[in-house]
């Protein structure tokens, strides 16, 4: 692989993971929802978009379908937990992600089960040569990343976002203002899930082959590491975290070309480092590299 095509690959994967980390950051960093099963929405998005597009639907409709299916699932799993503490959120979302993976693993009639789906069509593939297509795809991922960034930024700066941030600090204040915190939780779960579904769709049509093994629980942890390192409650932080972790993750793959180390051992050590990074950030720099900016709001009519 040439240097340029490798950089394009890295950028595309970083872009896709940045969307994942933005969407998790929206749920955790802003709404305080401890979602330990984010990979489920990524997985549902990837499969929904693949099945729709292979069924003859245009690409953009597939993307939309991915967001809708993932969003609905996010909404559904928040039903039993909306009124419960963070601990229950964590365990239910982990469980839900496993169910989703087991579903796609066992239900071969729907999505080929463990064999995975090959030959996923790529949008506008015929207009480009093999060497120029990745550059186009990168452009497309960046456009979707931009849309995600601005949409979530708009949301978190709106009155809706202010309620989420108040809710994160405890239910009492938003309740006192007559806000239905359960509904806010369910909505933010669905919105975050929908954007993770978008990332899944972009992933599937880029890699062109998906199977349940792409969506192991460890993916969720990697997305968490991105949010924790970059800075919870900060959109740019989430993107920066995604870039750092992704560059580390992908570049260490080449370490075996320079030092004599088994691939298996390397994979373990890589995860040890990412795990340690999360633990150390939680102890020494809980707000992450960038952290949330304090915003002050002026009453309208003043000044």
């Amino acid at each position, binding site marked *: 692989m040439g240097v340029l095509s490798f950089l394009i690959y890295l950028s595309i994967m970083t872009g896709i993971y940045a969307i994942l980390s933005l969407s998790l950051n929206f749920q955790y960093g802003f709404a305080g929802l401890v979602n330990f099963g984010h990979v489920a929405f990524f997985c549902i998005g990837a499969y929904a978009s693949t099945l729709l597009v292979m069924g003859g639907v245009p690409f953009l409709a597939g993307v939309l379908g991915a967001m809708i299916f993932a969003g609905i699932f996010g909404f559904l799993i928040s039903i039993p937990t909306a009124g419960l503490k963070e601990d*229950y959120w964590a365990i239910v979302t982990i469980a839900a992600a*496993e169910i989703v993976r087991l579903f796609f693993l066992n239900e071969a009639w729907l999505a080929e089960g463990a064999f995975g789906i090959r030959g996923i069509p790529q949008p506008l593939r015929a207009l480009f040569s093999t060497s120029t297509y990745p550059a186009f795809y990168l452009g497309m991922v960046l456009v979707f990343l931009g849309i995600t960034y601005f949409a979530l930024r708009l949301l978190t700066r709106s009155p809706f976002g202010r309620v989420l941030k108040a809710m994160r600090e405890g239910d009492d204040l938003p309740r006192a203002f007559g806000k239905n915190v359960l509904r806010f939780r369910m909505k933010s779960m669905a919105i975050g899930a929908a954007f993770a579904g978008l990332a899944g769709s972009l992933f599937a049509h880029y890699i062109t082959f998906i199977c349940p093994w792409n969506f192991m629980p460890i993916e969720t*942890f990697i997305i968490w590491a991105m949010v924790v390192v970059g800075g919870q409650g900060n959109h740019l932080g989430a993107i920066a975290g995604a870039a750092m972790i992704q560059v580390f993750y992908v570049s260490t793959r080449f370490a075996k070309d320079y030092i004599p180390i088994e691939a298996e*051992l390397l994979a*373990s050590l890589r*995860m*040890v480092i990412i*795990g340690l990074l*999360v633990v150390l950030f*939680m102890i020494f720099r809980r707000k992450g590299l960038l952290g949330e900016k304090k915003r002050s709001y002026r009453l309208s009519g003043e000044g």
Partner: protein
Amino acid sequence: MPIVQILANSLIRAVELGLLAIGLTMVYDLLKFANFSHTEFAILGAYLAFLFNVTLELNIFLSAIGAAILTGFIGISLDRAIFERLRGVGSVTLMVTSFGLAIVMRNIVRAIWGADIKGYAIELQRPVKFLGARMTPIQMWIIAIAALCMVAFHLLLHKTKLGKSMRATSDNPSLAEASGIDTVKVIRWVWFISTSFAAIGGILIGLETQLHPQMGFVLLLPVFCATILGGIGNPYGAVVGALALGLVENFGLYFNFGNIINLGGVFDLVGEIYVPTSYKPVISFAILIIILLIRPSGIMGRKRER
């Protein structure tokens, strides 16, 4: 499969999960956070026993005891190195940190021992008939050892000064501290018991089946399910929860759900419907959702003793 056999299988599963659930619920109760690295201590203990038993060729009993004690000390050290710095910062931070620690521990195990399946140096097990169920001698040992641990734990909690301090501290830490209880020492003891019980649970599971680094994650959901089912903070509830889960998991696979739809033979709408074995892990999730919807405090709730 005869009912006695399903009961025996459920019991074995229950005692293994029970040992893990006791430890999880103790730390949960005392330090008020869900420790996602708990089941990784089970795996660490199981692999340490493998080190003593297979690599150093020690007797399996000595290996298990050594591994449990060592894991207990590792538990205390990790609490001092990590969780002690985070006391009072809120359960979310602690939970995310323990999630990170779980990944570190799992991958250290994988880095040292590799990802392939391993087993202890024990004789080939031949099942014998016992009260109508077929059990291997090792499975009987598993039940006996786990039961012994649980009885010992009960005696510790109610018959010793340490147990009294532990109950007092989890009820009201500041009051306990004011009454002259060394809460720091109590917390250390709770970590020791919690993680060494996890290690014993892990070793028992390894004895019955095999060792692989993903075991910790596989165990996570059933152990949390048993803990929540029994009511968080209640070690007796944890055991009852584990028993209930063991029964449902094993009976769930042999239950003909077609009978419900046909109203027990009144209609003939559908044929036989069974839960596919590949969905066995889903059973604990389904139970979890049902409890959360009906009774999030668990079947035994929070028992307060004064």
